[in-house]
C-alpha cells in the first residue's frame, strides 16, 4: 500500500545569481512499512527533501501526498496538526526542549494535541529506549545517545504515518550509532513503522530495504535491496 507519493518536487533558495536549486524535479513513492535510506554527499539536497516531507519547510514546486492527503494544500494550522499526528522527525542535533524533562519531551506532540497520554505506550517506549530510569531528567543531564533516544521516542510516541530521521547518528560514536539504528530498525519491524532515514553512513544504508541516492537535487539511483520486512 502506497503511503507517500512525491511528484516533481523542486526547492529553490535565493534569487538571481545566488539562486540554488536544492531539489530539482524529484519524484518517488514509498510503501507502508518500508525502510528507506536516502544517501548523497553534502549539499545534495537530501535534508531539504526530508524537511519538506516532514512539513517543516515549503517546496517551491511539486506535490507531496501522505496517506492520500496533499500535504501542502493545507493551511498553516492544518499543517501543524499534520506534523503533530502524522510525522515523527528525528534530527542530527536532537532538538529537545531544554527546560522539559524526558517524559515531557517525548509526550510533547500528544500533549499539544490535547489528548491524554497513552501511559502503556510511553512505558513501553521508555523501556525499549532504555530511558526508564531517566524519565524525569532534563536533556542536559543526558548523554548524546540518550538525547537522541528521547527524540526517537518523541517521533514514535504518536505512531505517525512516517518517521523521518535526518542523520540520526551523525553526532554519535559508533557504539551509540549502532544502538540507534537497531532501535529504528526494530520500530520498523515491531510497529510496521514506515521509516525514511537520511545518512551518509553506508552501514546504516545497507540495513534499509531500499536506497535512494541524490546528487545535485536529482535522484541518481533508486535501488531495492530487499523486500520490506514490515
Amino acid at each position: 500500500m502506497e503511503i507517500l507519493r512525491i511528484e516533481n518536487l523542486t526547492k529553490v533558495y535565493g534569487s538571481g545569481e545566488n539562486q540554488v536549486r536544492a531539489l530539482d524535479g524529484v519524484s518517488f513513492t514509498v510503501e507502508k512499512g518500508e525502510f528507506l535510506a536516502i544517501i548523497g554527499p553534502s549539499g545534495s539536497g537530501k535534508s531539504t527533501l526530508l524537511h519538506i516531507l516532514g512539513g517543516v519547510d515549503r517546496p517551491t514546486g511539486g506535490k507531496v501526498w501522505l496517506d492520500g492527503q496533499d500535504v501542502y494544500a493545507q493551511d498553516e494550522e492544518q499543517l501543524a496538526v499534520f506534523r503533530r499526528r502524522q510525522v515523527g522527525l528525528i534530527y542530527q542535533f536532537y532538538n529537545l526542549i531544554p527546560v522539559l524533562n524526558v517524559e515531557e519531551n517525548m509526550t510533547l506532540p500528544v500533549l499539544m494535541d490535547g489528548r491524554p497520554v497513552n501511559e502503556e505506550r510511553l512505558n513501553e517506549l521508555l523501556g525499549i529506549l532504555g530511558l526508564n530510569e531517566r524519565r524525569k531528567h532534563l536533556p542536559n543531564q543526558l548523554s548524546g545517545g540518550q538525547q537522541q533516544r528521547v527524540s526517537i521516542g518523541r517521533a514514535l510516541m504518536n505512531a505517525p504515518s512516517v518517521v523521518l530521521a535526518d542523520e540520526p547518528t551523525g553526532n554519535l560514536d559508533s557504539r551509540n550509532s549502532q544502538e540507534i539504528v537497531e532501535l529504528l530498525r526494530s520500530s520498523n519491524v515491531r510497529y510496521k513503522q514506515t521509516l525514511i532515514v537520511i545518512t551518509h553512513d553506508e552501514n546504516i544504508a545497507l540495513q534499509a530495504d531500499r536506497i535512494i541516492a541524490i546528487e545535485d537535487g536529482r535522484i541518481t539511483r533508486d535501488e531495492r535491496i530487499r523486500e520490506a520486512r514490515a
Partner: protein
Amino acid sequence: MNILCVFTRKSLLANRTRTVVTIIGIILSMALITAVIEGAYSGHQFLIRSVEEEEGAWMVSETGLTPEEAETLRHTDGVGKSAVWNEAGWAMIAPERAERGDKPYMLVESMGEGIEDLLAIRLTAGRMPENPGEILLPSNLSLTSGVDYREGDTLTAALGRRVTDAGETVSIFEPFAGPSGEFEETVADPEERTYTVVGIYEHFSWEVDPYENPGFIALTRGEEGNGNTTVFCTLKHPGRTVKWLDAHPPVGVRRVHSDLKKFNGSFGNSSMTTALYGFTAVLVFLVAFGSVSLIYNSFSISVSERTRQFGILKSVGATKKQIRGSVLYEAFLLSAVGIPVGLVVGCAGIGITLTCLRGAFDSMIRPGSETRMKLVLHPAALLIAALVCLVTTLISAAVPARRAIRVSPIDSIRQTEDVKLRAKEVKTGRLTRKLFGFEGMMASKNFKRNRKRYRSTVVSLFLSVMLFISASSFCSYLTGAVTGVAGEDDGMDIRYYTAGDERDDPEKTLAMLSAAGNTEDGTYMDNTYVEYRIPPEATHPEAKELLASDPGQEEDFYTWGGSLTFLRDESFRDLCRKNGLDPADYFDPDHPKALVSNRSRIMREGRNGGVRYGYALTLDPEKIPCTLTSVAPMEMEGYVFTEESVSENGERMLNYMARGERGEAVGEEILTFPASEAEVVTEYDVGGVIGIPTYGTAADQFTLFYPFSMEKAVLGPDADLYQTNFVFRAPNHAEAFEDMEDALTEAGMTTARLWDEAARSESNRMLVRVVNVFSYGFIILISLIALANVFNTISTNIMLRRREFAMLRSIGLGNRGFRRMMNYECLIYGMKGLMWGLPAAFLMTWVIWRVAGSAFETGFYVPWPSVIIAVGSVFAVVFATMLYASAKLREDNTVDALKNENL
C-alpha cells in the same frame, strides 16, 4: 496543565536573571505610573480639602431667593448637599464709618440645618449660637469697626431691610451708597433685637462675603428671617459644574465657588493652565514611553532567544495559536507578579514622599490649617494603571511573538533569518583593524552581521539617553517656570522701617536690630519710586520693543518706572567691589553717580491670551555712562498738586489746590502754572552696571543705587523720603524676628513695622522644593527603567552568543583578546546609542521649552550637566553589563558551550 504552559513556566525559571530583570521592569513601570497617578490625585484632593476647610465645601450659592425658590433649588437635579441661611436683617452699627463710605452695617443671617458642612465657620472664641437669642460675630468686626464685643456681651440692634429711598431691596453686592451716592439707602421697618454674643468666628473669605458687602455678617440660629434666603449647595458631579450652571439659569444672584470649580476640573484659559497641562502631557508621555520600551525590549529579546525552541515546538506540531498562547501566558505570569508588587511599591513610594514633604505642603496653605497632605488612593485610577501596564505587557509580548510565528519551523530551528549576508556588508575598515586588532575587526563584523539583534540594544540605549535628558530638561524648565511665575526670591528675611524722628540715626537702629537678631547681614536704605526719563539712544532694544506699543510714550525720551535707592554707604562699597568697580567714583557730593540694576521683571501677553512672565533689560550697557532725568511738580507751601491739564494754546499745565489737614485737596480754588515753570527736573548720572540683583526690589525692578550719604546731593537739601527701610538676612528668621520684636519693645519703638518676609516667601520656596523633590524622584525612576532596559538587552544578547564565543576561544582567542573584542563592541553600542539618543533628547528638550515658554519667558538651553552624566553613564552601564555577562561566560567550559544545544 497544558504542556505549553509548563514549557513557559519552566523557561521562565530556567532563565532566572532575564525573568527577574523583566519583572523588575514591570514593577518599575507600574510603580511609576501608579506614583504619577496617585500623586497627582492626592495633590488634587489635598487642594480640594484645603479649600473646603478654608472656605467651605459649597460649590454654588444663590442669594435673594424666596423660601419657596430656595426649596426648589435645593431639590433640583444634580444638587448634592444643601443648606440655607435666612436674612434676619441689617442694622446700622457704625454710623461714623458710613460717612467714610465704609462698612457701617451688621447683617444678621439665621443659619439653617447643616450649614456647617458647607461653610467653613471657624470659631476663634466661644461657641456656635443655638437659638434666636444668641449671636456669633465675625472677627473683622472688632478689628476694623471699633465696635468691640466680647463673648457674653449683650448686643442690641435695630434690624430691618436694606432699601433704597424708592423702597427697592438692596443686596449684599451693592456697596454702601454713602451720603454722595447715586441713591439714598436706609434700613426699613427697624425692629429692636437683643442678642447674647456667644462667640467670634474667623470672618468668611470673599467667596462667601463679597468685598462690596457693607455689612459685617453675624450669625444666629432659628430665626425665621425677612424672607430673603440664600442657598449654599454642592453638586453631585463636580466635574460637570459648567454644564450644570448652563442647564440651570439662576433665579436670584448666583455665585460659584471659584477655587473649588477650578480644582474640580473646570479651569479657566490661563497660560499657567496651558503650561500645567503641557507639562503633564510630557510627563505622561515620558513615563509611558519608558515603560513600554522596557517591557517591549525584554520580550523582543526573549522571543528571539526562544525562536529556536518555538521552531522545535512547531516542528512537532505546535500551532500558531499555541505559540502565541505561550508568549501571552508568559506575559500574564510576569504581570501577575510585577503588577501587584509595582502597585504596592508605587503607592508606598509616593506615600512616603508625600509624608516627607508634609511640612512643605503645610506651608503652602493657611498656617494652622488642619488639612494635611496624605496619600489618597483612587481605586479606579489604580485599576487603570494596572490595566495600562497589563495591556502594555501583553502587546509587548504579542508583537515580537509574531516573528517567531511567521518563519517556517526549520528556519526557526536553524535561525537562518539572522545570517543572510554578503561579504561586502561585513567589510571592516583598516583603521578598525589597526586600532583594535583582530578582535576589533571581529567585533565590528559581528555588529554588521547581526544588525537586527544589536538593534534592540542600541534602541534601548537610545531610549535611555533620551528619557534621562528629557526628564532632566523637564525638571529644569519646570523649576524655572515655577520660580519665574512666583518671582525671584530677594533673599531678604526680615524687614523693618523707621519714620519721622527715628530716622535720625539709622546706624544705631541697624546695630541694635542686628545685635538682637544675631544677624550680621543687614543694611538700610531710603527708596522711592521714580518715573525715569531715558534718552532713546541709551535705551536697550528689549525695553524699546516693550514700549513700542505704549501710547503714552513721548518722542524725545522713554519713560520707565523704577526704584531710586540710597543704600547704606558700607553696603554700597560692597556692591561696587563685588562688581569690580571703584567705590571712590561714587562718593563725590558735587557729581554723585549711580549704579544701575538693569533688569526688570515684566509681564507680556502669552500665546493663549494669558500672561507670560519674563525679564527685560532697560539701559543699553554699551551706552553707560549716561544721564537719566525725572520730573516732579514743585512743592508749594499750603497747596497740593492735583492734576495736569492742557491750556488753550496747547501748553502743559500743573494744577494745585489748597491743602487740607491730611494732605487732601480742599476748597474750590485751582491754581495753574505752566509745566515748564513748576516742574523740578532731577538728573541722575549712571556710572556703572551691577550684575547681581540684590537688596529687595532690585531683584525684580529697574533700580538706581546711590550711597546713602549722597541723598541730599542728588535730590536737593529739602528732599525727604519719609521712611528708612531696614533689611536683614537671617537663616533662622522666626527666632530672629522674635528677638528683634523684643528689642524694639524694650527701646520703646513700634513693632508694627517689623515683617517676617521669609515666612511669606516660604511658601514659594516650598513650592520650588516640592517640584524639585518630585523632579528628582522622577529622574531616578526613569533612570532605573533605562538602566534595567540596557542591562536586560546587553546581558541577554551576550548570553545568546555563548557558542560563538566558545568557538572563537577554541581557535585560540584568549581572555585579553576577548576583552578587547568586548570593549570595542561596547564602544560601538555607546556611540550608536548616543548618535540617535542625543538629537532625540534635544528635540524633546525643545518641545519642553516651548511648553514652558507659554507661561514663562526663558531662553532655550540644554541641561549640559545631565548630557554629560548621560554620556558617561551610557558607557559605564554598557561596560559594566558587558563585564558582568562576560564574567559569567568565562565560567563556561569551551567544549560544553560548543556542544551545548540547549541555549
